């Protein structure tokens, strides 16, 4: 690991100031992804601004929304009684991610900021436009079994790695960020980006902005929810495909629905058209299959990931079935 400056801060403003003063400075919270990337010389910040002393760990109901501080640990959120009761989909998605040790370190804000696990991004001997713009994409013609089928570009076909974010995009969360120009709110669906011509940018945070909280509006998805994650081993692996499904069912009719997918795109992939196809219909396999077909429209496979075109809809149907009839 290269050497770097290190500074501890205890307010969002001090953190933003500290990171603004140095080119190539980074915030560090849990460090579970950043330290890994620094060891491999994939990210080489000249300064780390430690934000762990900033009091942003709260998880609380504020009016008609639940506000979760950016420094709340993944394990704290997953185990929170409030979250388990009112946002069970979020709790499920968190427990599907990483390991118990990593969830004890990783924060909500850091989870949103984690980088793709594309092998070409991680292997500094291989070309990667995300790691070094202009080098080319090794995955495009390479071993792309884990790669995206939605929203890709010629520059990048990597997928977003988080499970938590799949639930958050489904639940219409809002990101609160503090920056040099003050605080602003970003709808979760607009937080992460598609690769386009600038795959080096994972999200729409402005320079030196710090995530301080996420807000999740109250919803009716307290019972019929399921986060289904398909992976190469039973636990502790990134998603091949994952689906966050939330249904509000009354008298076997779907009153409202939320659906999002992971492992398929550069950003958490919300399936709004499929949701519309669920609403007002009976909670049946036929309804779910129809929604899954709509969800997959526009999907484009590469050499090694064509299986996702079939695994995707099957995972959607199974997640919806599990949501409709929770164990």
């Amino acid at each position, binding site marked *: 690991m290269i050497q770097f400056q290190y500074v501890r801060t205890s307010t969002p403003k001090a953190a933003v100031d500290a990171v603004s003063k140095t080119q190539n400075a980074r915030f560090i919270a849990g460090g579970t992804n950043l330290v890994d990337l620094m060891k491999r010389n994939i990210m080489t910040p000249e300064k780390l601004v430690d934000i762990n002393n900033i009091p942003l760990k709260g998880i609380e109901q504020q009016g008609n929304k639940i506000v979760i501080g950016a420094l709340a640990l993944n394990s704290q959120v997953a185990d929170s009684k409030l979250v388990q009761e009112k946002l069970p989909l979020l709790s499920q998605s968190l427990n599907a991610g990483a390991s118990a040790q*990593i969830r004890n370190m990783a924060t909500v804000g850091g989870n949103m900021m984690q980088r793709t696990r594309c092998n070409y991004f991680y292997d500094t001997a291989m070309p990667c436009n995300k790691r070094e713009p202009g080098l080319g994409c090794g995955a495009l013609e390479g071993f792309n079994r884990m790669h995206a089928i939605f929203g890709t570009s010629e520059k990048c076909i990597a997928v977003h790695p988080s499970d938590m974010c799949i639930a958050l995009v489904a639940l219409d969360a809002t990101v609160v960020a503090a920056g040099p120009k003050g605080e602003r709110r970003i709808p979760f669906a607009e937080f992460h980006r598609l690769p386009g011509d600038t795959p080096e940018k994972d999200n729409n945070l402005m320079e030196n902005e710090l995530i301080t909280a996420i807000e999740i509006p109250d919803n009716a998805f307290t019972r019929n929810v399921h986060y289904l994650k398909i992976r190469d081993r039973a636990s502790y692996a990134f998603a091949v495909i994952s689906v966050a499904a939330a249904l509000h069912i009354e008298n076997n009719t779907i009153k409202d629905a939320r659906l999002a997918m992971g492992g398929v795109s550069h950003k958490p992939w919300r399936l709004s058209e499929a949701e519309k196809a669920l609403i007002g219909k009976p909670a049946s396999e036929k309804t779910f299959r129809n929604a899954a077909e709509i969800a997959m429209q526009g999907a484009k496979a590469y050499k090694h990931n064509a299986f996702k075109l079939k695994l995707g809809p099957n995972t959607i149907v199974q997640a919806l079935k599990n949501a409709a009839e929770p164990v």
Partner: protein
Amino acid sequence: MGDNHYSDQPENESFAESRRNFLKNTSLLTAIAVTPGVVAKAAENDLGEKIASAFDKVPLKMEINGVKQQLSVEPRVTLLDLLREQLNLTGTKKGCDYGQCGACTVHVNGQRVLSCLSLAVMHEGQKITTIEGLTKGDQLHPMQEAFIKHDGFQCGYCTPGQIMSAIACIREGHAENEADIREFMSGNICRCGAYPNIVDAITEVKNNGQKL
């Protein structure tokens, strides 16, 4: 060094330049010595913000296995390397060093974490427990006894991490049944495949109901 460890100066103008020079000479240990240090200046410290230059060591207080330690580390040193290289606590193992195997699991303020993905400087004032901190004199911890009784290991390399993780797993309430144990122990890889015996050991300790 005293205050030289830290400077409240917002920026070290020569940092980038120094780093370039340093990188040219990475094979020369003397490079650090010829790099100009940060000018020390103590003032306006109201937020507790202090910048440690890349080449400085940072003073660090920790309690490790019940013993208060006053240490001095470079910011880039991981908790794992601090334990093993500076404190000779080699019970905590370096497996992958990238957060994928769990061999380096320790407790920080009672919570299990991966010491390889954690910078030591980020644990100022915290309590660390390693496998060496579990025994009371010659008396093994109940989880250590259970691993021996159930053959919860073969080569033993992952065992310290498994045991630290297993204790936390029970404390967290994530050892209610076998499926639970397997899920919440999935961050500890055992290449010898002692998993069934590890599950048995954890189940027995859980069922004994002792406070861990």
